[in-house]
């Protein structure tokens, strides 16, 4: 076969190449660059190898934030996935009721993140917020600025309010795509409501739930804005998640080197977890 040498191909992919370079590769390489140096000020820097990485992996504050982050993501997934599927099952299918339900469900997804934080910051305040007042009136002490448990409950409720709709929409789309004869056959086979869910709906939702699980994992593992607005990472450091810790290092303390190393580790951890979850969920779908 005659092979045609034509270097114009490189020229043709240049625009994409530049785009990717400027918005992904170059910024990322800057971070890599910082993570290997100690920066004292403009023009004053020293190459120090993997020292910042070593420090990141040994930092007890980061360890604590990491465990907190895992607990938070675990709770988010445990609450939002089953809740989202349960709500999707109860939504009407077809007609104006379905359209109305979808719009109502989707509203929280349309609100900017810091506004969501503001809403809950006010809503849960013990002295002026409706939620805070009601809970305290019931005799349950609730104050997210002083009590870590209250802070966690507030942030989890906020996240569930904000993001369960995404799971609902995905699960609802999955449910709507199940052809009617499956339900008809199940009726003829005498299947109970539970059996219909277990053997028809759940297997057919496998694909969308994998996506919902991964999206909710990644987003909750990176969460920053909403808890930052509500608690600022407090009380103490009880709601200081990884990204809040990272911003404190990079912007608050201006430790660019350690923050860069931390960022890279953070990124790799999310990538690794997502890969592992994806593999496990795919296996579970096939088995």
């Amino acid at each position, binding site marked *: 076969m005659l092979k045609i040498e034509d270097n114009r191909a490189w020229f043709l992919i240049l625009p994409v190449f530049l785009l990717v370079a400027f918005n992904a590769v170059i910024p990322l390489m800057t971070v890599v660059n910082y993570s290997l140096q100690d920066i004292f000020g403009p023009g004053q820097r020293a190459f120090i190898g993997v020292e910042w990485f070593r420090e990141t992996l040994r930092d007890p504050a980061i360890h604590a934030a990491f465990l907190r982050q895992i607990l938070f993501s675990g709770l988010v997934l445990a609450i939002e996935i089953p809740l989202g599927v349960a709500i999707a099952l109860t939504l009407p299918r077809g007609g104006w009721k379905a359209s109305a339900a979808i719009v109502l469900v989707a509203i929280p997804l349309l609100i900017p993140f810091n506004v969501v934080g503001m809403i809950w910051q006010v809503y849960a305040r013990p002295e002026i917020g409706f939620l805070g007042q009601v809970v305290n009136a019931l005799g349950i002490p609730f104050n997210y600025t002083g009590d870590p448990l209250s802070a966690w409950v507030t942030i989890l409720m906020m996240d569930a309010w904000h993001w369960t709709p995404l799971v609902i929409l995905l699960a609802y789309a999955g449910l709507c795509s199940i*052809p009617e*004869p*499956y339900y*008809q*056959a199940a*009726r*003829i*086979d*005498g*299947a*109970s409501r539970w*059996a219909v869910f277990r*053997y*028809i709906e759940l*297997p*057919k939702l496998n694909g969308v739930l994998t996506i919902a699980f991964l999206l909710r994992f990644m987003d909750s593992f990176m969460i920053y804005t909403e808890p930052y607005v509500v608690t600022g990472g407090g009380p103490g450091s009880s709601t200081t998640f990884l990204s809040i810790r990272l911003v404190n290092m990079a912007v608050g303390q201006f430790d660019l080197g350690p923050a860069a190393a931390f960022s890279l580790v953070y990124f790799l951890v999310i990538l690794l977890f997502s890969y592992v979850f994806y593999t496990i969920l795919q296996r579970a779908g096939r088995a």
Partner: protein
Amino acid sequence: MAEITVSNLRHSYDGDLSDPARLALKGIDHVWRDGGAYALLGPSGCGKSSMLNIISGLVRPTAGRVLFDGRDVTELGPEQRNIAQVFQFPVLYDTMTVEQNLAFPLRNRRVDPGRITRRVREVAEMLDLGPMLGRRAAGLGAAEKQKISLGRGLVREDVAAILFDEPLTVIDPQVKFDLRRKLRLVHETLGLTLVYVTHDQSEALTFADQVVVMSEGEVVQVGTPEELYERPGHTFVGHFIGSPGMNFLPCALEGGRIVFDGGSLPAPRGLAARPGGALVLGIRPHGLGPATDEAEAVPARLIDVEDRGAFRIAEIAIGGNRLRMRVGERDWLPADGLRVAFRPEATLLYANDRLLEDAHA
């Protein structure tokens, strides 16, 4: 097993019976005899699937009753009717093995596990699914999947009837033949009542003892495949069954002869009263032939000849009417002066689209 009766069945999907033209089913009375193999044949939208879903209980009729062996089941859901239904596309429980799929209807009815195992083996044996019982149902081919759907119906020993809704649509032609034969075999072995919905006439005619032809929400004829072919009770049946369909010529009775544009034939002797309504003469393409020297032949003009392999279809014009005539491969057709004979026993008369009985021309 059961005899299924539908009486005065009317159905409208919006529940409004006031406009008869918009009904999916327009007052159907029919008895599906116990152990019969029926095909329910008709074009898309004729109401055949509605009828099937009403029998199985998936759809509740707006008016009318459904009886199983004389017991009124109109208000009962499908799970209480002991009916099995096979759908157009294979419906399987993807996460289960073939064995679990077959056992599912029995497990739901809390049948003793020992009996389930035995019954599943029997059915798998009958449908040649034995070797794949342990495999996951999701990975199988369309034909096997349809067999599993059928098997889920057969495992229930008390099943009243098996309903098929165009079950061979997604099956390859060669496999279709095997599957249809299997179905006949199962029917003969178990003596179940089968109702088979299809829009494919060859499928209906080869499968069924009795074919129920539907059109626009009404049953237009019930009969054996032969009856439907030889003596269509309605012009729709003549037109729908057969390839090409029946020829129709608008005609009138004058002085003891059937007169139509371009010719006339002697009127049938048995025609008692003078029928009212629009009169039409119907004849199958094989009822026509080039005349040798019969007196009662009609002059025609040859337009086109189409080769169909073992025979040919000649398109001819008699007056202003276009007709199709079936001729043998070796029959000689004159380009000029063609005369066409109408075989008397194949010449039928229709008044208002209904066959005039005892009216052979």
